[in-house]
C-alpha cells in the first residue's frame, strides 16, 4: 500500500477535490482500504472468477458511497472497476482515471499564434528526423 515506502494518500484526494464539488470517501480508506482485486498482476491472471470475488468488497464500498463517479489513480483499478465490477455487480457508476478527471476539468488558456508556430516548427523538425509522413498509406 505504501509506494516506495511512502503513502501518497492526500495528494490524489486534493486533486480530486479541485475537480469535484461533492467528494465522498469510501470506508474504510487509506491504509485500511481494500485492494480492488486486480492488483499485483491479477488483472492479467487467468483467474477471472477469483478476481471478481476479490472485488466484491470494493464493489460494496463503491455502492455504499452512492456516488455517480469513481476515480481510480491506477490502470488496473480502473479496468477492474470499469470493465469488471461495474458489470458484475450492476454498479451503474462512471469510472475515470484521476488524470482523466483532471483532463476533463481543464479551463485552457488559448495558445498564442507565436506559441503555435514555435510548436509546429519543433514538430516538423521531429517528424523529419523520424521520417514521419502522415499522408503516407501504411
Amino acid at each position, binding site marked *: 500500500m505504501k509506494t516506495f515506502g511512502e503513502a501518497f494518500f492526500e495528494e490524489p484526494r486534493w486533486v480530486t477535490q479541485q475537480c469535484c464539488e461533492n467528494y465522498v470517501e469510501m470506508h474504510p480508506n487509506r491504509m485500511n482500504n481494500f*485492494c480492488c482485486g486486480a492488483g499485483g498482476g491479477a488483472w492479467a491472471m487467468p483467474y477471472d472468477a477469483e478476481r471478481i*470475488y476479490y472485488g466484491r468488497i470494493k464493489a460494496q464500498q463503491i455502492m455504499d458511497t452512492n456516488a455517480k463517479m469513481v476515480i481510480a489513480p491506477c490502470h488496473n483499478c480502473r479496468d477492474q472497476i470499469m470493465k469488471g465490477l461495474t458489470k458484475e455487480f450492476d454498479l451503474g457508476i462512471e469510472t475515470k482515471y484521476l488524470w*482523466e478527471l483532471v483532463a476533463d476539468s481543464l479551463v485552457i488558456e488559448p495558445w498564442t499564434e507565436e506559441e503555435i508556430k514555435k510548436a509546429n516548427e519543433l514538430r516538423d523538425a521531429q517528424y523529419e528526423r523520424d521520417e514521419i509522413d502522415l499522408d503516407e498509406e501504411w
Partner: protein
Amino acid sequence: MEPLTINRKESKLRVAPEWADVCFTCGTCAGGCPVTGVDGMDPRKAVRMAALGLDQELIDSRFPWICTLCGRCEYACPQGVEILKMMRRARSLRERDKVPGPIHKGVAMCLERGNNLGIPKDDFLFLLADLSKEMDEDEGFPGFYAPVDKKGANILVTVNSKEPFGEPDDMKFWWRIFYAAREDWTTTSTEWEGVNWGLFSGDDEAMKEVTGRIVKHLEELECSTLLLPE
C-alpha cells in the same frame, strides 16, 4: 512422504523456523484478506506452510497469484511477519513457463522488443503523430504534438503499452494536461514501457533491466522529472 528438513538454509522461501513462534496464528491477516477461503487458503495458512517447510506446495499453489500483494495482511499483523515478501518470493520460485497468464510472456517480450506487447517503433511513432494531428486539427488543441526523444525536456513520460495497443485515445488525457500547462515533456521512441511486469511475475533481474532503461533515458535526454503514470 519424505521427511521435511526445516531450517533457514533449506527453506526456498527463505523463511526461518523461528517464524513458527513469531506468528501467533491469530488470523488477523486472514480476517482482513478478501480471498480468504479461496482454494481453502488464506494468508495465515500460507505462513504456516512456509514455517512448516511446505515451500514447494505453496509455490505450486494458485494462492500467491490470486493474492494481489496488497499488503493488508502484513499491515495488520501484530507480529510484523513479512507476508508480502514471502508471497512474492513464492511467485519468483514458480518455473517461468508456469507463470500464469501473459505476464511472463510480456516480460520476455519487453526484454526483447522494448515493450510488453511488442509494438514496433515505426507503428508507435506513426500512432503518436496521428493522434497528435487529431488533437491539433479537430479537438481544439492547436499546436499540439507529442514530443519524442526531446533532449532537455522537463518531464520524461513512460507509456502503458495497453494504451497504444488498444486504447490509444486514453493517451490524450495526459496530453491535454500538458497542453494546458504548457509543459515541456517528452517520451521515447523505443523502450518506453512503463509497466514493469517483473514486479508481478517475481522476476527481479527483468525488473532491474526495465528500470535501468528508464534511468538511461533520463540521463541521456537530461530530463529532470520522471512521470510514470501507472
